[in-house]
């Protein structure tokens, strides 16, 4: 009898299984089913002709094909670009490492409408590249790598820094060269986290909306764009729901493949504290690798961000902080940026709690339940990431009118954010949890620790590290969330992204300037939050 595993059969264990099911069932599956049924039965009977339309309509067929193609290419490209970054940031300590690690997360949470504008400037005919890449697939791929770089760096990186370097050293001592040691020792250990990161990047690019809309112009559309188009312009709810289901099916297929891969490659590994793993570069070769990686990272991620910041500082009288001052003054009448900042912080704080609670409980269950149940749960709980924002927003609106009418409650905003954010927590915690050696648990159990105590003393410290990373992601996702928020009916509480969108919707230099300044504020907030979590993570839980 594996006593280390028995927590799941104790009372607390049952709660752990129930928590994610209740959370995702109530706030994801239930609204989803309600809105899909409502959309397909608007005329009083079930109408499935929308599915036929997807096949017969040329623009929708093209959207489906383009969605798969660009998601695959974007995922491969992101891995190629970001893995060196993950390596350097997790294996080497150097001045500014923490800031850099926080900064790479910034693009990930920026509203695409803002970054899209920066990219239009960079990739336009007057940009530094000198070629006009607007409305090409290249522009979309470049922006996708930019947005998703952080996913790979943080998920793979937080795992990489737990791998004991002595393993590779041992391989080298036994005669393997550097490449052999990496390929035969480190890479197999990393695979689960690489697969986890790749699956998230794939989901994001598969459901990409803003980037494709702005940079792809009219030539390219993803299924997500088509869902949105049907819901907001064509006003065809049935077509929109049918497309959303097709997208979810695509996402579920990809997740299923990922889960299979994950099961085959999951390995237990000896984890080490990051404090001892990261070391300063020693040889000239190491300096070169670290230096070149950092330089390319700064250049690639910095260019659009730099463009954005520079534009926010541009005023008629030369560079200055005028637009920032007017954020506080609220110079524009129709939206109060200062209020939006306060609202967003509250929403982020409120969204992190359920997101981390549900995500953590889910991860524990997934990691501890071997076999098909855990795998199925894993797939199911990732689905919110692949669900159209239209569906989540409309779903809340249709579902929560009974027994309490919550449809216009302000709490729906952080709740929607938490549904979108919880999968991040799961993805960051599960790989770490899977790698916990059962012998550690068994040893503790043999020494007389109760299941609860085993959990608290052995596993909790490990989970906490990963959970904090997840919490950072969740807060950042909430701060930048725009899609689902826009499809709720809100009691007039602007968030930072909705305020930016609002400001950009009106002509005039003052509005554009404020939108750019507010975007910069959003970037700073995100950086600060991620840095704070990183600091806490290292200081409080560095050793275990």
């Amino acid at each position, binding site marked *: 009898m594996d006593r280390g595993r028995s927590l799941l059969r104790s009372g607390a264990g049952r709660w752990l299984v129930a928590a994610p099911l209740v959370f995702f069932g109530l706030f994801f599956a239930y609204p989803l089913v309600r809105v899909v049924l*409502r*959309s397909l039965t*608007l005329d009083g009977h079930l109408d499935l002709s929308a599915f036929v339309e997807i096949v017969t309509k*040329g*623009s929708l067929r093209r959207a489906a094909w383009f969605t798969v193609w660009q998601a695959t290419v974007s995922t491969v490209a992101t891995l190629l670009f970001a893995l060196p970054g993950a390596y350097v940031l997790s294996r080497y300590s150097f001045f500014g490492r923490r800031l850099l690690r926080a900064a790479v997360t910034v693009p990930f949470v920026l509203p695409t*409408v803002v970054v*899209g*504008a920066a990219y*239009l*400037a960079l990739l*336009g*005919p*007057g940009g530094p590249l000198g070629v006009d890449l607007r409305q090409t697939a290249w522009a979309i791929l470049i922006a996708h790598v930019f947005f998703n770089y952080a996913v790979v760096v943080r998920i793979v990186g937080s795992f990489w820094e737990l791998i004991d370097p002595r393993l590779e050293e041992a391989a080298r001592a036994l005669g393997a060269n550097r490449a052999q040691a990496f390929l035969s020792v480190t890479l197999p250990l990393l695979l689960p986290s690489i697969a986890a990161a790749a699956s998230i990047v794939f989901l994001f690019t598969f459901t990409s909306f803003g980037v494709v*809309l*702005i940079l*792809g*112009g*009219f*030539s390219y559309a993803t299924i997500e*764009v088509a869902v949105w*188009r049907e*819901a*907001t*312009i*064509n*006003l*065809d*709810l049935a077509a929109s729901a049918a497309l959303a289901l097709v997208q979810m099916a695509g996402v579920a297929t990809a997740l299923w493949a990922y889960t299979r891969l994950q099961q085959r490659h999951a390995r237990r590994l000896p984890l080490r504290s990051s404090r001892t793993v990261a070391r300063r570069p020693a040889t000239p070769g190491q300096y070169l690798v670290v230096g070149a990686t950092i330089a390319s990272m700064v250049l690639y991620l910095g260019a659009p961000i730099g463009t954005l910041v520079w534009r926010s500082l541009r*005023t*008629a*009288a030369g560079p200055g902080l005028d637009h920032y001052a007017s954020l506080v003054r609220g110079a*524009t*009448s*129709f*939206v109060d940026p200062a209020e939006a900042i306060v609202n967003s912080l509250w929403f982020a704080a409120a969204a992190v709690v359920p997101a981390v609670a549900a995500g953590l409980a889910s991860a524990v269950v997934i990691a501890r339940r071997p076999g098909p149940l855990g795998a199925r749960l894993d797939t199911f709980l990732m689905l919110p990431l692949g669900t159209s924002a239209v569906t989540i*927003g*409309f779903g809340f*609106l*249709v579902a929560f*009118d009974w027994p309490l*009418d919550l*449809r*216009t409650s302000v709490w729906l905003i952080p709740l929607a954010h938490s549904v979108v954010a919880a999968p991040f927590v799961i993805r960051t915690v599960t790989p770490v949890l899977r790698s916990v050696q059962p012998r550690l648990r068994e040893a503790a159990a043999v020494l007389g620790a109760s299941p609860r105590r085993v959990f608290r003393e052995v596993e909790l410290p490990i989970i906490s590290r990963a959970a904090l990373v997840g919490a950072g992601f969740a807060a950042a996702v909430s701060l930048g969330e725009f899609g689902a928020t*826009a*499809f709720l*009916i*809100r*009691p*007039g509480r602007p968030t930072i992204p*909705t305020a930016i*969108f*609002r400001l*950009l*919707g*009106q*002509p*005039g*230099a*003052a*509005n554009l300037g404020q939108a750019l300044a507010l975007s910069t504020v959003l970037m700073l907030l995100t950086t600060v939050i991620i840095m704070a979590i990183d600091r806490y993570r290292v200081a409080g839980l560095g050793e275990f």
Partner: protein
Amino acid sequence: MRRLGILLAALMLVAAGCADGTPEDEGPQTVRLVTHDSFYVSEGTLEQFEAETGHTVEHLEAGDAGTMVNQAVLTKDNPVADVMFGIDNTFLGRALDEDLFEEYVSPRLVDVPDSLKLDNRVTPIDFGDVCLNYDIAGLADRGVEPPSTLRDLTNPQYSGLLVVEHPGTSSPGLAFLLATIATFGEEGDYTWESFWSDLVVNDVLVTAGWEDAYYGSFSGGSGEGDRPIVVSYASSPPAEVIYADPPVTEAPTGVVTAGCFRQIEFAGILAGTPVPNAARQLVDFMLGLTFQEDIPLNMFVFPANENAALPDEFVRYTEIPDEPAVVAPEEIDANRSRWIEEWIEVVAS
């Protein structure tokens, strides 16, 4: 057992009383007003309604106009609001088809021109014309006159100068497509599709949304692009003056008054509201001068009430087109999806 019977009878009486009597519709009530996310009125405007009537307004913000209509369709059986503001004629057909609104003819409609009244179930509150805007200096530099008709845009001298929005992703884009359909028609030698084919030959740039067209690709005013002609609003030049940084005395952009499409924004009382009287009062208030004169500088559209005074900038820096293109709401609703698909086939392939 007898006691239970009495209890049941009493309950039934109470239930019958509830079902029978219409809800109380006098005295101070709360009116829920749902608007699109571009709604804004000056502080004190809705408060004046509250002071005059004793009612309270609860403002709810939906998505854009199209999203708001779908939100109302989805919640038709149990509406989240009593009054909807901001549905325009491009989406009106859908809402009427779904019977979202109760009929109401406001006494204040006498001050509204007949051309804005499309149906008794909705009350016109404001209108905005989607028109071509041009960069005055940009065209002058090229030695090109502003176009005076849509057809002019197919002339080689306008090659590479125009940026428009995708009708499938942008509300002004859809309005402009409707203007071309109304102008060139679906039949004959030169249809709207012929026109768009010629625009493609003339290197028209299509963007997804108004923001990327105006800020990203248009060269006039606050635009940072290189194309001097854009599909925007007749009220954009006044906005350029009002939000100029530094202040200016002349609008940097102009409006082409031919080939405009008029978006009329309506208020409607959502069917099944428990407070119909207060809802009607709110609609009346929206047609009153306080609300009407507050509209232009906050939402950059024109008031429907002819007696409302326009701000100076709206008089000096723009024109109201005499004969905007007209397509009936039912016709739009019946063909919108097909037109967009056909447009994609012409322009994207």
